[in-house]
């Protein structure tokens, strides 16, 4: 038995949506992070909670890409596929590398499962040569678990639900992972259900031992800790990071956070996360609908809290009128859109970046709002903090775009110290001069007077305001000035954000790839590979989509080719052309899945050839 040293690996756990693959994958991720590897994850699950059992549409998967080098995507082709049943194998086979490893639960390949995965009687991918180009390890997990738990007081259903732990233990052995944190996790999770705890631990250990004692492998793998910058690390998921960013910014502003949401995939985890942090003064409000959620958040902001609301595309559509109100009354508010496949209900559990133009323009009247986007799960923290800072310091609603891929993905995060985070300063009114609700400072920002502030009683509302006084005004000239002033206020935010930097490369390169949101990782990997191959290309990643950094237009003008990869039909391209008349080459993918680095590489090479 040799231990083979690998630089990186991608493991995909796949099973029925009731097989516990998400939990299996997240445990593997946590242990791998604690092992010191860098990693990125990609959970992929059906929209149905329990889609028809055993069918291809019901397959739930969790992909983990980890390595001793830095990891920026959840991986391309898979090294090891764990398949709990026929459907899981069929659905994911095309993701597997040539000669990749498949670990199959033979118990999921009975006649019923074969039929559900559309195999005709007598056919079986395990025996018909389909898998001849792969290494296949077949284990009847069903049978082993049944035998192991024959004396357990648990019912059959609960016993069967431990099967995922067998596979987890098995893969831990294969990749030399320390089982300790998972043992602790199981002890904690099932503290109140000792029989369930005992069964899960027994099955998990059985998986480890089975891999160790049966001579199924010629190799075991070791992936050494990555060379990460020194510091303190933890694992972070996108929605979790976003929630923490909101809390941190509220604390740094000295305001309480009021988060209102209506349950919607894939944004609900932000509400769940924040509802656990009430000791930070956080109030969470599960509203009766999306409109009430943003309404309540506006009410809280009017009351001097920092109001925030989170949703996904369809919910965003419902919030648009209220966004206009928040814009008009110039109160701080953070609106999070964890994008998913659209339009309408679209692909609720799949990722997409097709709400950028909605964020930019989806309101009646002239109502520009700042728009920021997160690049990775840990970036969700920073961008949420920054969005909240802008909302408070510039007295404006701000839209923060995330997406399903980063919301559910995880990565190690060198988390900051609270003391190192910047202070946020709310522009509260002072009693020095008589309060005028629409008196503005040099950044065009009005002062914030909240109920309880004596002598500053005032009325705000959706009707057009007179300059300074805020009284209702139908005056023609005043309206035009106010429209221009509100736009100037948002545009002036460009003065308080950093200038655009290169993620790699420089203006010396003829080609630049401009990414935004979750296309960051795939673009970064593609660019690194391309540069290794001698393709001269630079990488710009945009966090600020409105307003753009001040130097962006000048930067882009220096390239022969500007390539924009997006998970939509070309929306950032519209904005770049509108702002700078930049000729752009659009690379789009609208499949509910993130880019593979290889797809971006191929496109850039093709464009390079035309230079």
């Amino acid at each position: 038995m040799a231990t083979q040293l690998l630089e990186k690996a991608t493991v995909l756990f796949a099973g029925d949506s009731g097989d516990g693959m998400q939990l299996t994958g997240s445990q593997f991720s946590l242990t791998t992070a604690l092992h010191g590897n860098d990693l990125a994850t990609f959970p992929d699950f059906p929209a149905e909670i329990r889609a028809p059992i055993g069918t291809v549409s019901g397959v739930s998967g969790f992909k983990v890409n980890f390595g001793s080098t830095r990891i920026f995507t959840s991986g391309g082709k898979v090294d090891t596929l764990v398949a709990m049943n026929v459907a899981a194998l069929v659905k994911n086979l095309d993701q597997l590398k040539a000669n990749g490893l498949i670990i199959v639960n033979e118990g999921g390949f009975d006649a019923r499962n074969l039929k559900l995965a559309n195999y005709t009687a007598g056919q079986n991918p395990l025996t018909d040569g389909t898998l001849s180009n792969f290494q296949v390890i077949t284990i009847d997990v069903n049978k082993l678990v049944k035998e192991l738990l024959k004396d357990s007081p648990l019912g059959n259903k609960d016993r069967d639900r431990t099967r995922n732990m067998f596979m987890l233990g098995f893969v831990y052995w294969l990749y030399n992972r320390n089982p300790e944190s998972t043992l602790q996790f199981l002890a904690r999770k099932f503290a109140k259900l000792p029989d369930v705890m005992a069964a899960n631990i027994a099955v998990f250990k059985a998986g480890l031992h089975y891999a160790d004692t049966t001579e199924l492998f010629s190799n075991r793998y070791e992936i050494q800790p990555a060379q990460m910058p020194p510091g303190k690390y933890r694992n972070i998921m996108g929605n979790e990071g976003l929630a923490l960013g909101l809390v941190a910014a509220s604390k740094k502003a000295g305001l309480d956070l009021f988060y209102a949401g209506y349950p919607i995939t894939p944004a609900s985890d932000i509400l769940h996360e924040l509802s656990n942090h009430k000791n930070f003064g956080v109030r969470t409000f599960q509203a009766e609908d999306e409109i009430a959620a943003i309404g309540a958040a506006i009410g809280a902001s009017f009351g001097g809290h920092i109001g925030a609301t989170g949703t996904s595309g369809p919910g965003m559509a419902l919030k648009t009128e209220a966004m206009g109100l928040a814009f008009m009354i110039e109160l701080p508010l953070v609106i999070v859109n964890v994008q998913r496949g659209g339009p309408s209900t679209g692909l609720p559990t799949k990722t997409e970046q097709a709400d950028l133009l909605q964020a930019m323009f989806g309101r009646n009247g002239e109502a520009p709002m700042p728009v920021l986007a997160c690049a990775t799960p840990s970036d969700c923290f920073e961008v949420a903090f920054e969005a909240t800072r802008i909302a408070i310091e510039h007295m404006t609603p701000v839209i923060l775009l995330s997406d399903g891929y980063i919301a559910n993905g995880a990565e190690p995060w060198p988390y900051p110290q609270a003391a190192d985070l910047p202070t946020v300063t709310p522009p509260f009114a002072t009693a020095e001069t008589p309060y005028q609700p629409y008196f503005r400072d040099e950044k065009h920002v009005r002062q914030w007077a909240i109920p309880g502030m004596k002598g500053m009683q005032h009325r705000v509302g959706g009707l057009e305001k007179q300059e300074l006084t805020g009284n209702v005004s139908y005056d023609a000239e005043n309206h035009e000035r106010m429209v221009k002033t509100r736009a100037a206020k948002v545009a002036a935010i460009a003065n308080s954000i950093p200038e655009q930097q290169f993620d790699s490369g420089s203006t010396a390169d003829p080609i630049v790839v401009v990414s935004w949101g979750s296309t960051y990782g795939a673009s970064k990997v593609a660019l690194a590979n391309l540069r290794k191959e001698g393709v001269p290309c630079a990488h710009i990643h945009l966090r600020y989509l409105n307003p753009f950094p001040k130097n962006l237009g000048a930067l882009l003008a220096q390239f022969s080719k500007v390539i924009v990869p997006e998970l939509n039909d070309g929306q950032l391209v519209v904005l770049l052309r509108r702002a700078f008349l930049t000729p752009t080459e659009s690379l789009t993918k609208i499949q509910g899945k993130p880019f593979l680095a290889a797809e971006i590489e191929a496109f850039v090479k093709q464009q390079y050839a035309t230079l």
Partner: protein
Amino acid sequence: MTTDTVTAKDFATDQDVRWCPGCGDYSILKQVQSIMPELGLPKEDIAFISGIGCSSRFPYYMDTYGMHSIHGRATAIASGLKAARPELSVWIITGDGDGLSIGGNHLIHLLRRNVDVNILLFNNEIYGLTKGQYSPTSELGKFTKSSPLGVIDQPFNPLSLAMGADASFIARAIDRDPILLRDVLRAGNLHKGSSFIEIYQNCNVFNDGAFDPYSDKKRKAEETLILQEGKPLVFGLDNAMGIQLDGLTPRMVSLATCSADDLWIHDSKDHTKAWLLTRFFDDPKVAGHFPRPFGVFYQQERPTYEKAMQEQVKQAVEKFGEGDLDVLLAGRNNWEI
């Protein structure tokens, strides 16, 4: 109480009031301003939140904090405001279109949560600001701009709707009876929880006289039933008529043939009786109809939403300590490189 002595006038703003001359809204504004000093709160601790419609201009005329928001959403906005700032006195100004049509969903959810706010629903049974379409409280068969052949929608009974949503305070008043209106406003303000106050308001331009039976001097006595706590239900000229309960069936009786002691005694804590009272909703044109009740129908003490929310924050602090950002950022599992 640290408030300076304030009068009703102190609550007026410098804005011209722009309702049509003769509109019932003027009376309501006046009564609200006149009871404001009784709140015993400084002006800066009071907020008026409205939606859209004629009545929703109200906050501009109150020298308190205020928001003239968007159609139907005052209830949602006020819920957030009150939840964030429980110490404020929050008043919602809405109408039959704003509160019962476009904003119906938020209204019922606010009521079930029992957010401690006062909801003044100005019911004029018409869309005034958009110039005369039927509203969700317009009566069947009514001819309006959008119903030239008559309304075919069954109207809402706002108080029954509020009871169905488990409102903890339900009352009805009318613009033309300022004394009753002030009494109801005071009671609503004292109530801890959502106070739902329907105010019949005459729109003299698009629906003039809709509530004449209840305000006209000649008809008022016969047509209205003024609810007084612990008092028998009597009405009519010289209070010659009364209401008796036969099981759960109300009957109108003449006091000539029946003793006042045998009448229904008003008890605003009795949910079943309050429900029956909200069903006194007959068309006054139909013979044998019951009089329309005014006053406080129902009040019930139950925990308010914002208190419960405050309590959870307090308990979380007691259990986990005041939030430490560094602990939050470090998470449960971390490592050092």
